């Protein structure tokens, strides 16, 4: 693309819930180098059509708001540069497999509910320690690395939009929830594997995945739910065959360490606590 501006046509699928009308609308946008699809859609809103609605917030790919289908693939609008798409017509649609609220905004209630089902928090037997911590639970960098990529999930829903099973089975837990279930099951600090396995080991749970791996290729954060789900099933088989043993990592022992060199002392107080008052 040349230095100067270039016009790109945006074709957006719209839905007006008040009349029930669904239609395609086209807009021309002057794009500049580095312009993202989100920038372009916001420009359309500001310059020509304030009734076009979409969801966004962080504009830096961490909040997970701006998932939509761009040129046939689920992507984050804020992370997709118009230039990189390389087409002079950009087709934008709401994420499939989610009900549409209006234009590009989809309803994610069910998606969040499924995430909630898999208990996305550490489960420990030492509840007393867990709620009144003394020191941290041990976890080596290597153990951390085991769950790291799964913790990157921003709940954008792109994986569910891409999954062929979510496309036909509304009750399927979906790649996001299943990957998170595995994230907690493999966390060395967690002891809740039995509970979580009961949640995912059912007719609409992890067995409905057929390793199409579309979830993994569309995931904007490299979470790789496809991988997580396969490893999850392996773990479940092990657990059912009573080969799975896990002992949650303990609380760290008290630290014995030397004072680090070069750390200054805080200066002596110049106001004594008794005379402390408002200056």
């Amino acid at each position, binding site marked *: 693309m040349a230095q100067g501006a270039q016009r790109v046509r945006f074709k957006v699928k719209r*839905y007006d*819930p*008040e009349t*029930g009308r*669904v239609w395609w609308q086209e807009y021309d946008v002057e794009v500049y180098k580095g312009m993202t699809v989100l920038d372009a859609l916001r420009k359309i809103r500001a310059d020509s059509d304030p009734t076009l609605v979409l969801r966004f917030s962080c504009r830096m790919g961490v909040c997970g708001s701006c998932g939509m*289908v761009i*040129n*046939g*693939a*689920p*992507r984050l609008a804020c992370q997709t540069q118009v230039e990189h798409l390389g087409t002079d017509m950009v087709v934008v649609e*709401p*994420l*499939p*497999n*989610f*009900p*549409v*609220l209006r234009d590009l905004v*989809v*309803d994610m209630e069910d998606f969040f509910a499924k995430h909630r089902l898999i208990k996305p928090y550490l489960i420990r037997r030492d509840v007393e320690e867990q709620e009144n911590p003394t020191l941290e639970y041990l976890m080596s960098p*290597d153990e951390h*690395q*085991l*769950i*790291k*990529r*799964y913790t*990157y999930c921003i709940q954008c829903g792109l994986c569910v*939009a*891409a999954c*062929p*099973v*979510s*496309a*036909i089975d*509304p009750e399927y837990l979906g790649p996001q929830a299943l990957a998170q279930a595995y994230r907690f099951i*493999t966390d060395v600090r967690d002891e809740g594997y039995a509970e979580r396995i009961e949640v995912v080991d059912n007719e609409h749970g992890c067995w409905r*995945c*057929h*390793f*199409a*791996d*579309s979830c*993994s*290729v*569309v*995931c904007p*954060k*490299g*979470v*790789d739910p*496809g*991988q*997580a789900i*396969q*490893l999850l*099933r*392996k773990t479940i*088989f092990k657990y059912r065959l009573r080969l799975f043993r896990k002992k949650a990592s303990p609380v760290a022992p008290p630290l014995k360490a030397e004072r680090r060199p070069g750390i200054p002392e805080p200066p002596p107080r110049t106001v004594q606590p008794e005379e402390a008052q408002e200056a």
Partner: protein
Amino acid sequence: MPRKKPKLLDNRGGLRHHLNPSYPRARWTAERWAFILHRLTGIFLAVYLLAHIFVTSRVAQGQGAWEAIMSSIESNPLGVVGEWILWGVIVFHGLNGIRLVLAEALGIGVGDPRKLKVPPEPESVYGKQRALLWIFVVLGFIAWIVGGIILFGEAGWL
């Protein structure tokens, strides 16, 4: 207090997305094509199995019954082509099935979760299972052709 509900538009991809191996369009996944083929071949095989049980039950009714049904298949060119397709279906479903048992049930070849590139890439796509898929595709294709040569040769077509 029950909340008011908006009027939502159902946008589930349905069978159209389910059966479309090229969705999402951005990056082609071989695994998705394999899945959809595996599913179609599986259905084919299951239906064939029931038919097969019925056909073979003729053996129990004596030579006449058996030869009658066999010749109706063998004399029909579609029957021979059908056998060749069946052979291809078995080969694909079987070989891909081996890959699936390894990957899905044993977690073999789906990549090491600890490996994290920056920006992160999906390891399962680059894992050994993908290589295995291609190997099987090639092997399966060869087996299918060899099967074809035998079948068509015996039918006197070659």
